[in-house]
């Protein structure tokens, strides 16, 4: 009798407790201000209908500001955010520090095995999935079919760098303000160095040898940088040392670029409503040099939960909603298949409807051809295709990026730039104890 009563009371207490806990949880979600993330905010009605007990507050910021705020918060245990948007670079480092909550216990409907292996591998540390990919990207060649045709050329599906140079030369018409190739030149580890590091892989170059000695004095880096500078000086737009992803996207959409080698997500923008060349764009894999590696990167913007968050259950519910298969179907039904966040799930690429999207195949082929664990021809001690997953890389990459950007602006020769980069990185790696 008493035991039953107690059990009953206990049960009521649990229900009551659960009731208050369910009452309403407000979670703060930090996102980048890119199109896919903004679209998600427009689809919140669906989430609110399914989870009326969770209220989502958005913090939408420009990428650099977001990274700055989120990093400061997580490193000082601020606990301001419940869900954060972070990249493939941060996840392994932060996961190792114990700053992120493991997502291994997401519900079965999340179907973790559906995630693309290359992307999933980059977000897993010691068997723990620390972030759920919202969209994944590689890089590829986007080119103007009409200009290629006018020049009497065809772009192979898997071009070499020599093909790119030939095409750039043929399409450039400076009088008409058409530049054969637009590439990133703006300094930054996530701007010009993302491109150049990925490109250097296809030339057989690497940041470090197995003993963490910088390799900028290698002939491979010299070949990479000289080829890049030559290409940009002859066929690139003026002022390219200030052009990052956004600037190049605008130029390409205005019809001022013959080719643009950049993120696969850009495909939906250059074929979208803001583009003046939407129906004239072709896609090809990032170029190679016959060494078995292509110059494409691998990146995923992913949702993660800081270990300092007090509302991890609600945060997991949200992440499951935003990154599972149903969400992809929801976007497709509301905005069309071309606007579905790409590059995260195998099932999407098995979908016949999605296969009709012009850039679908090239995107998945690009992603599949990148290998973060063996990014370049020679062995390396680090993980990452267009970055080196060590905490010091943001600083290093930006320093080297500035030196290379100066070379593009004509302030330095390739040799001077490489010598400077080698010296700067050697100093830093010695100071931080990598080089014994």
């Amino acid at each position, binding site marked *: 009798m008493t035991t039953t009563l107690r059990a009953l009371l206990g049960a009521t207490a649990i229900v009551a407790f659960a009731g208050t806990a369910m009452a309403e949880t407000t979670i703060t979600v930090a996102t980048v201000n890119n199109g896919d993330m903004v679209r998600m905010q427009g689809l919140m009605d669906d989430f609110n209908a399914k989870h009326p007990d969770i209220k989502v507050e958005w*913090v939408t910021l*420009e990428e650099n500001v977001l990274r700055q705020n989120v990093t400061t918060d997580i490193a000082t245990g601020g606990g301001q955010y419940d869900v954060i948007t972070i990249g493939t670079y941060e996840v392994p480092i932060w996961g190792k520090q114990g700053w992120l909550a493991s997502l291994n216990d997401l519900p079965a409907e999340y179907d973790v095995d559906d995630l693309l292996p290359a992307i999933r591998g980059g977000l897993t540390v010691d068997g723990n999935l620390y972030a759920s990919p919202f969209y994944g990207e590689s890089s590829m060649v986007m080119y103007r079919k009409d200009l290629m045709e006018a020049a009497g050329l065809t772009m192979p599906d898997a071009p070499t760098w020599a093909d790119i140079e030939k095409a750039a030369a043929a399409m450039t018409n400076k009088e008409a*303000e058409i530049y054969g190739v637009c590439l990133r030149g703006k300094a930054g580890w996530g701007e010009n160095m993302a491109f150049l590091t990925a490109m250097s892989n296809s030339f057989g170059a690497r940041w470090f040898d197995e003993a963490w000695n910088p390799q900028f004095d290698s002939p491979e880096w010299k070949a990479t940088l000289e080829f890049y500078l030559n290409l940009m000086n002859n066929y690139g737009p003026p002022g390219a040392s200030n052009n990052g992803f956004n600037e190049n996207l605008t130029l390409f959409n205005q019809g001022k670029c013959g080719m643009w080698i950049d993120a696969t997500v850009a495909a939906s923008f250059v074929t979208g409503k803001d583009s003046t060349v939407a129906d004239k764009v072709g896609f090809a894999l990032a170029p190679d040099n016959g060494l078995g590696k292509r110059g494409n990167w691998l990146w995923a913007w992913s949702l993660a939960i800081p270990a300092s968050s007090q509302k991890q259950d609600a945060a997991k519910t949200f992440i499951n909603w935003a990154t599972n298969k149903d969400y992809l179907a929801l976007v497709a039904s509301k905005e069309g298949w071309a606007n579905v966040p790409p590059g995260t799930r195998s099932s999407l690429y098995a979908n016949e409807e999605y296969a009709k999207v012009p850039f679908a195949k090239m995107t998945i082929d690009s992603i599949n051809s990148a290998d973060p664990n063996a990014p370049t021809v020679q062995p390396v001690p680090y993980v990452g295709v267009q970055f080196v997953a060590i905490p010091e890389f943001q600083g290093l990459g930006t320093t080297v990026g500035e030196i290379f950007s100066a070379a593009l602006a004509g302030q330095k020769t390739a040799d001077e730039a490489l010598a400077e980069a080698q010296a700067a990185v050697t100093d830093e790696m010695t100071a931080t104890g990598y080089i014994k």
Partner: protein
Amino acid sequence: MARAHSPRRLWLTTIAAWTVALIIFFPVLWMILTSFKTEASAVAMPPEFLGADWTLENYVEVWGRSDYPRFFWNSVVIAVGSTLLGLLIAIPAAWSMAFVPGKRTKDLLMWMLSTKMMPAVAVMVPIYLLFLQFGLLDTRIGLVLVLMLMNLPIIIWMLYTYFKEIPGEILEAARMDGASLWNEIVYVLTPMAIPGIASTMLLNIILAWNEAFWTITLTTTKAAPLSAFIASFSAPQGLFYAKLSAASAMAIMPILILGWFSQKQLVRGLTFGAVK
């Protein structure tokens, strides 16, 4: 003006002054015009003036994409709050420095200004840690405090120079009449100092409104003001010149309107009592 001016000279100076003023104002004007163009028209070459493709679309989209009223209200609370709190603390200080100066008053003033010399980025982590410790992150009161302390030296400096202009004899006379210190401040000093206080207030509201480092670093959602609103629009996937212009216009418009309505006070305030 005692001097007589020929009409020809009047027209010459008018034309010259307007040309200069329009050149200075042009970037703002161009931004506002751009905000009413379609994206295609905004980047058209050659630039389009009258023949541009005008639209309100950018404002509709910017408005729809974020909670502008909340950012706006936070800006108002933070800018006005920090200024009022600053005045509350600064008025007594400036009063006593102006009317009961000591040997070190000038040094004290300079020392106060020198507290503004530490670059904000260098103390970012210390301040962040302090805010975290005291639970002030993402609170309006936290930002009110920071901006108040940042601008306090300027407020004191401005008030000090205004109070200096008030002839001491008037206060002497009031004191002779047996007015208490409190009465002296409330009935004699304050009415005479109102224009100076008003312009100090205006200038500091503008400085606080335009602050864009701490207001972004120390906030997430609840206390984020218009500077954070702008940070969510800069460079979103391709440079949407027109939308960026619209967001920028929305961020500066309230303060621009306030400034225009109060420009007489402001002109006085901006002199810092640089003239007697």
